[in-house]
């Protein structure tokens, strides 16, 4: 049986975070009453002239710069013609053979281009009640019409649904940290189409692709791609051919249906937009875009890994959630050069986040990311706590108890340690007699330990913990045991 390889390219539409529309000054406000933000330009009235929003171009250039693409020196717009009620002019102003950005790369996926265009309006299909001349009617809300969009097109370099969704997460986080878009999939400010084909492993030519439209969550994207790959594989194995078509994935039923083609809608008859002759990208706009690109998640993760020596997983966690990364760096700053960076990362990425998320579940169910900077635990307090544990002033369990208190009430770790009597049973001097007593009380364990079987050491650690009310350091107990027994 032939094995098949999946080939996926993505097209992502992102609404750019401008105040006004792409070609007119109508304000963009999500959720306002329908048709309260329109004007003769975005309604496509004859005789009106579009004027480009400089900020949309600046944000588009930032995306291009972040991905290392080639930035266009001039703006060239084309008309993409098709008739649909969500498009009042009968064409969309878009870009064609001279996109704003050519090439580029994000992580493991190369980009073909990024171009800017205007969004279509929102069409609501009315029920049977609103019939016009026997056919059902629809209602158009032009508030969204004309919103600046960046369309990001990847090369067909993605090989699985899982890779597609994890790359999209990276893209979303990168765009969010760039500050160019709200990237809210539910509200439609980030939308994704996938071009999918399969081919026998080893083939270099691309198979016939289908286009899976408008998937609005990472989960649906994964499910949709997997369902389409299964459908294509079954077709090919049955000796049939894949038809080039546009498809819709229904996440409720898991089924894939062909979207009734907008008769020849792929015949877009692009031609240069006569109302806007090509114009040079102003240098100050370009410079302002370049200067506005911050350190992005992949770069930050790389810096955390190579300069601070964090494990790959910690580095990505802290870099991909900016609030955590910022808090981490502040904690390092508060802890001085001697701070154990990986330990700080662990305490923030695991212990603190888990507590804050649990606390939030009790309070409110928000979608916003957990931000430790908003909590009662100051970076200085966390740095102090980690130092107490690293220096074995308290053991890890006690550290976790201290953190519970800090999360609930704030304060200084040292004060909590004193108030709760959590200080570790001091150095070897204090601990040694306790370990000795535990060994004396467990001769059978001692016998096994002497044979080199260290497994039963847990019993000794347990006994010491019990005696010290959990304030001993397990590693220290083991060390003293070995010392006493001469192991």
């Amino acid at each position: 049986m032939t094995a098949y390889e999946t080939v996926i390219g993505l097209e992502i539409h992102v609404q750019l975070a401008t105040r006004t529309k792409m070609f007119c000054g109508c304000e963009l406000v999500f959720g306002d009453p329908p048709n309260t933000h329109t004007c003769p330009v975005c309604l496509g009235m004859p005789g009106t002239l579009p004027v480009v929003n400089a900020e949309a171009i600046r944000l588009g250039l930032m995306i291009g710069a972040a991905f290392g693409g080639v930035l266009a020196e001039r703006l060239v717009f084309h008309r993409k013609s098709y008739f649909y009620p969500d498009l009042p002019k009968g064409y969309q102003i878009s870009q064609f053979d001279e996109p704003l950005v050519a090439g580029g790369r994000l992580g493991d996926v190369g980009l073909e281009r990024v171009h800017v265009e205007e969004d279509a309006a929102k069409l609501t299909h009315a029920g049977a009640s609103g019939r016009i001349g026997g056919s059902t009617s629809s209602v158009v809300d032009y508030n969204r019409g004309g919103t600046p969009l960046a369309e990001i097109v990847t090369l067909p370099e993605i090989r699985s649904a899982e890779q597609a969704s994890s790359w999209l997460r990276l893209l979303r986080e990168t765009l969010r940290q760039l500050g160019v878009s709200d990237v809210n999939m539910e509200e439609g400010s980030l939308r994704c189409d996938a071009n999918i084909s399969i081919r026998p492993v080893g083939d270099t030519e691309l198979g016939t692709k289908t286009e899976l439209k408008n998937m609005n969550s990472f989960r649906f994207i994964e499910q949709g791609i997997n369902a389409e790959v299964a459908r294509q594989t079954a077709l090919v194995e049955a000796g049939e051919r894949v038809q080039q078509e546009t498809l819709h994935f229904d996440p409720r039923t898991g089924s894939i249906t062909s979207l009734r083609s907008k008769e020849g809608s792929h015949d877009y008859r692009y031609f240069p937009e006569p109302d806007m002759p090509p114009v040079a990208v102003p240098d100050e706009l370009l410079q302002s875009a370049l200067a506005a690109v911050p350190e992005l998640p992949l770069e930050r993760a790389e810096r955390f890994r190579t300069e601070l020596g964090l494990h790959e997983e910690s580095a990505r966690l802290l870099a991909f959630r900016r609030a955590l990364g910022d808090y981490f760096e502040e904690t390092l700053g508060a802890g001085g050069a001697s701070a154990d960076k990986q330990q700080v990362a662990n305490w923030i990425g695991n212990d603190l986040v888990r507590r804050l998320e649990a606390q939030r579940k009790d309070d409110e169910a928000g979608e916003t990311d957990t931000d430790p900077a908003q909590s009662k635990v100051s970076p200085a307090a966390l740095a102090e706590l980690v130092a107490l544990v690293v220096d074995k002033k308290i053991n890890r369990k006690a550290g976790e108890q201290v953190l519970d208190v800090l999360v609930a009430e704030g304060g200084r770790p040292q004060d909590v340690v004193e108030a709760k009597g959590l200080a570790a049973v001091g150095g070897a001097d204090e601990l040694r007699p306790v370990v000795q007593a535990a060994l004396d009380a467990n001769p059978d364990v001692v016998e096994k330990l002497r044979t080199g079987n260290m497994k039963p050491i847990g019993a000794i650690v347990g006994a010491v913990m019990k005696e010290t009310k959990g304030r001993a350091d397990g590693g220290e107990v083991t060390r003293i045991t070995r010392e006493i027994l001469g192991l």
Partner: protein
Amino acid sequence: MIDRDTVLHVATLSRLELHDDEIEPMARELSAVLGHLETIGELDLDGVEPTTGVLEDRSPLRADEPTRSLPREVALDQAPDASDDGFRVPSPQA
């Protein structure tokens, strides 16, 4: 010469309804237009930038500042049909 099928295809894309007796004249007229463009094509235009418009290269960029939108009643008044809050159109899915 543009054939009948091409005329019908372009008419569909443009949402134009053509009567049977309009198709042949339309084919002739469109062919004449293309013929004119072919004449231009005979010129040696190597190294000449395509002219996409006759306007000067003025900076058409606009600051991202809101301007006043139309009152909704005024906007909807322009439409052949409207509901309370939107433009009503025949459903493209019907």
